């Protein structure tokens, strides 16, 4: 297999000393032959002293077009031809004047110098092109690394660009269970020789730069560089280039590996930052929980304890009406406390991971149960239930669904005025079941809509007592049941809120 990348982007290597190909030899012969012909044709019109200039022109052209060695050969041929055809005695190689030898020297010098200069220029041009290509690859590499969001993406971008600029192979090895394994390679499915695996291990353990053995010597074929202590090593195998041209590629490779290290570092920082954020959020949640416990649990307790001790202390000294009112306050606060505690327990259960019992259930049954509970809790309020179907059978958990729906109705009743009804609608569309709870309350400000399902979040109006857990529990349950809860507020352009629960027919 020819390991050179199929679509090489680098120019063919050029060198001023490169030996001429046979095509160039023929060209030298033809150039000199043409000059002889032209010289013969113009012999009567040109002064004899111009003849060497004609041959000099031929030598320069050959040299410029085909390089140093062609120039040398052309100058020798030109000297011989001129001597043979145009210097007396004609048609012999006999040289009678010392000046004629000087002509040879001048021709040789002109051919060699021109060939050398042109060759150097061509080399410079090639090097510039290599540099440009390397810069372009580096630029592309930097751009693609900047958008990488996972280490795997960084590895892929690095191997791809390293292989391009090296005109060869590249791979990334990462530590896994104490061994380095190939995570990304170009060409895909690359397998390392044992000596290369050893070199990779050395680069990883010691952080050393491992270079390939010189061509023809035993040893590894890849160069390896450390990417990071947890990120592993990168290896590449430049196949064609050597010398000046490879220097450019080497610079580019180092720069790209450095870019990859930075990209990996950036990902680590991003991950750290995300973890710090998550931890801050947990901390905020904990603080909210504590303050909620402190206020919302202690306030009803204060009324209960204070009321009971008042009754014990004063008993008959209190007017009957005051006694009755105190007892009612105790009852209401005990109920409120019971709701808080059950909400907290639900939340804890949701946080700990639910053990739910999927079964074929009728969503309408669950909805009827939730509506009945809401009517018991709010005897003065109107709660309607609408559904076009006789039954809506899905695979889900009836108890959890009823709880979620009750929390939605409870929320709607709490936040709408006492004379407004709350509608519950159950609908089935395609393979989905929708439960909608519609109220005509004040609606939820747009800025708060993203947060109402967050634990312990309470709206800015905050006129109602509550733990801020009701909707969080709804979201927890609905997610556990494979569904989604969303809200629309205001709806139908009239204010109020629709809470919509979307459930799949079958629980996965």
């Amino acid at each position, binding site marked *: 297999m020819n390991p050179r990348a199929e679509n090489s982007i680098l120019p063919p290597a050029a060198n001023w000393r490169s030996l001429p190909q046979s095509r160039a030899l023929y060209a030298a012969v033809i150039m000199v032959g043409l000059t002889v012909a032209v010289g013969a044709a113009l012999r009567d019109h040109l002064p004899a002293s111009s003849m060497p200039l004609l041959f000099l022109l031929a030598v320069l052209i050959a040299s410029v077009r085909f390089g140093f060695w062609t120039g040398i050969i052309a100058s020798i041929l030109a000297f011989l031809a001129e001597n043979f055809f145009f210097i007396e005695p004609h048609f012999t190689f006999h040289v009678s004047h010392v000046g004629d030898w000087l002509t040879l020297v001048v021709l040789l010098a002109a051919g060699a110098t021109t060939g050398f200069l042109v060759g150097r220029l061509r080399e410079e041009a090639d090097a510039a092109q290599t540099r440009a290509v390397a810069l372009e690859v580096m630029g592309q590499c930097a751009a693609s690394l900047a958008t990488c969001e996972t280490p795997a993406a960084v590895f892929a971008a690095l191997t791809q660009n390293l292989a391009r600029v090296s005109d060869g192979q590249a791979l990334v090895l990462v530590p896994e269970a104490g061994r380095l394994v190939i995570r990304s390679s170009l060409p895909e499915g690359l397998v390392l020789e044992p000596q290369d695996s050893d070199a990779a291990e050395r680069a990883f353990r010691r952080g050393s730069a491992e270079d390939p053995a010189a061509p023809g010597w035993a040893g590894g074929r890849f160069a390896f560089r450390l990417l990071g202590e947890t990120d592993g090593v990168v290896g590449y195998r430049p196949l064609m280039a050597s010398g000046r041209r490879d220097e450019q590629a080497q610079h580019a490779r180092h720069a790209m590996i450095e870019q990859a290290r930075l990209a990996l570092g950036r990902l680590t920082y991003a991950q750290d930052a995300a973890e710090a954020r998550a931890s801050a959020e947990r901390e905020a949640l904990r603080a909210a929980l504590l303050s909620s416990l*402190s*206020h919302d649990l*202690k*306030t*009803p*307790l*204060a*009324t*209960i*304890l*204070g*009321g009971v*001790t*008042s009754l014990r*202390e*004063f008993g008959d*000294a*209190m007017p009957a009406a*005051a*006694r009755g*009112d*105190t007892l009612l*306050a*105790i009852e*209401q*606060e005990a109920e409120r406390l019971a709701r808080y505690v059950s909400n907290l327990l639900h939340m804890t259960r949701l946080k700990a991971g639910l053990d739910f019992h999927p079964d074929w259930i009728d969503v309408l049954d669950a909805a009827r149960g939730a509506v009945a509970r809401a009517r018991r809790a709010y005897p003065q309020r109107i709660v309607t239930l609408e559904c076009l179907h006789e039954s809506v059978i899905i695979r889900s958990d009836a108890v959890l669904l009823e709880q979620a729906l009750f929390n939605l109705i409870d929320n709607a009743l709490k936040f709408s005025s006492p004379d407004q009804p709350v509608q519950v609608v159950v609908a089935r569309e395609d393979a989905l079941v929708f439960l909608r709870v519609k109220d005509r309350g004040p609606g939820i400000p747009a800025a708060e809509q993203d947060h109402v399902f967050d634990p312990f979040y309470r709206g800015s109006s*905050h006129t109602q007592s509550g733990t801020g857990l009701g909707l969080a529990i709804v979201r927890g349950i609905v997610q556990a049941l494979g569904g989604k809860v969303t809200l629309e507020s205001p709806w139908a352009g009239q204010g109020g809120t629709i809470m919509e629960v979307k459930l799949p027919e079958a629980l996965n």
Partner: protein
Amino acid sequence: MSGAGFSILIVDDEAQIQRFLRHALEAAGYRVLTADRAATALRLIGSESPDLVVLDLGLPDLDGKAVLGQLRQTSEVPVIVLSARDDETEKIAALDLGANDYVEKPFGIGELLARIRAILRPKRSGEARDELIRLGTLTIDRPAHRVARHGEVIKLTPTEFELLVLLATHAGRVLTHRQILTKVWGPAHTEDVAYLRVFIGQVRHKIEENPAEPTLILTEPGVGYRAKA
């Protein structure tokens, strides 16, 4: 009953707490005013001059400490703070701002009534500067610098005596570490809480029947001390 004549302003945004407090305090013979916002409370204090204010620290319109600050600019009315917070620094801050005592929610009505009585008593009796102070079974003779239990004299150093007198003259009311240190040792020693603990230990050792379970000088954890009412 005992509270006849005194008026008490209850400042709490929780309607349920207002409800039972009103019934209980009225049954105890107090006249009860209520406010659920700081603004209303401050207005009522100005116009009705209650004898005592029961103030919840968590009001919706103004932080409890800010209420205290504003109140103290114009009025010397005794204030008992209701706090749902277990935060000692919160209580100390309230006491430093001029609250006379605190009760932590949830509380029994007996506890609140005891605090109210402890604050209103000296006013009622007008005998706060009595030469003979009684603290449990102790008799404290201020002019003679003498403490006795059942006629048996207990020897106290001058500082110990001063400490005991301070606590006994504020019987039933909490005194913060800072308040005690300032009054007994002077303003330069307000932070020497360790000092105070040592002296309290010595005094308890001399006056308590069982120093391990003190009944005359009670510790308010993190806040200060309170002498038996």
